[in-house]
């Protein structure tokens, strides 16, 4: 679509605003809501979406949220998947920090971890694209590219009959993203920023997706442990809609996700 055509499309919106606002509000039935499609690719937000929302409320020291280099030599596939998700979240942090070298470092680690899962061939070109965008400071594009990379990893997992690992990548990203966001809020509490933490349905959705994976994978000590702790985390992020969490409540979420993240990062998987 040409730039002019895009502007024409945008211009046509103002004419229907009033109509949309004036219509009688509709309601969905409980059955309709229960049967609504819930998919990994559209129902679960990216860490980047979470970071953008947090960045609206305050200036965040994103580079202060970096963590040290992580091992890329795990042998347990569930642990690799969880860490891959966390690493992709780290990529979104580096994009928010507008740190091209960090983006490149993380891009390289993503490829290494993906290689350990046998899904790296197509990703090699993605890695060079990430580097190119980082060098050119194309931050908006990098954010979309990171999500595309994550989806390509998941697609490759599905084609390698590793579809059960997909939700673990998503979960690892959410845990790391929530760890970073809660740490930033604890450092400089602001109730507008704290509002982003209310996501009980999102945690329930991830729990429900985990319940669909194979009993063998679900029974692995690390997966079992993370799943159990997710139940506790769901309670911690179940705030009333009109009441942002207090600094103390945010700290409790941070401690809970920090504990899970430590287990995920550990070189020795949980026994």
């Amino acid at each position, binding site marked *: 679509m040409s730039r002019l055509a895009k502007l024409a499309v945008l211009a046509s919106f103002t004419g229907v*605003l009033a109509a949309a606002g004036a219509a009688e509000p509709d309601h969905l039935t409980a059955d309709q809501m229960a049967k609504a499609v819930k998919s990994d690719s559209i*129902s679960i937000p990216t860490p980047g979406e979470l970071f953008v929302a947090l960045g609206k409320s305050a200036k965040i020291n994103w580079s202060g949220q970096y963590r040290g280099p992580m091992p890329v030599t795990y042998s347990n596939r569930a642990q690799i998947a969880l860490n891959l998700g966390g690493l992709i979240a780290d990529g979104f942090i580096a994009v928010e920090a507008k740190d091209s070298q960090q983006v490149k470092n993380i891009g390289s680690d993503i490829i290494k971890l993906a290689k350990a899962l046998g899904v790296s061939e197509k990703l090699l070109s993605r890695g060079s694209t990430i580097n190119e965008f980082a060098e050119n400071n194309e931050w908006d594009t990098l954010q979309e590219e990171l999500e595309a990379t994550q989806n390509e990893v998941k697609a490759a997992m599905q084609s390698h009959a590793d579809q059960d690992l997909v939700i673990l990548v998503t979960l690892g990203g959410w845990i790391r993203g929530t760890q970073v966001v809660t740490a930033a809020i604890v450092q400089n509490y602001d109730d507008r920023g704290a509002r982003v933490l209310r996501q009980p349905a999102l945690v329930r959705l991830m729990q429900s997706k985990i319940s669909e994976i194979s009993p063998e994978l679900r029974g692995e000590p690390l997966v079992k442990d993370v799943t159990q702790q997710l139940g506790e985390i769901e309670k911690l992020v179940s705030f009333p809609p009109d009441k942002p969490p207090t600094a103390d409540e945010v700290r409790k979420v941070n401690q809970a996700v920090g504990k899970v993240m430590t287990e995920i990062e550990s070189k020795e998987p949980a026994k």
Partner: protein
Amino acid sequence: MKLWVPIFVWIVLLASSVPVRAQTDAEVSARKDALDIAGAFANDGFKIRDGHWCGAIKPHDRAIVAVNLYAGNQYWFSAGATEPVKKIAVSVYDEAGKQVSTEGYDNGDKAAAGFSPANSGQYFVSVDVLEGEQGTFCLVYSYK
């Protein structure tokens, strides 16, 4: 942003999202229409999610997807549909199922709804056929 960048991203998005199953030609066409609308918002700083949701849609049987949104962000949900669907609508509902007030765009078989949630949490997005017969639709969303 240079003009080639959104074009490149658009191509990447079409080529790379998670293929749970092979997309039909109708789904590819509907998705292209949805991305056309979303592309207009990209000029206004909205980032297009790589994920999408495509499927069959028929009159009086709305398609509904759950989404999880963050307070502070602005969202646009853009949908396209293929013949014989003539006219569609996109609506947003809160976690209790109550329709929320949205900005709207309506252009026959393409439509979009813009929304800025005051509360984080689960919302539902529906795509309805207002005119026409059963066809294929695709929904994408963007945020800033």
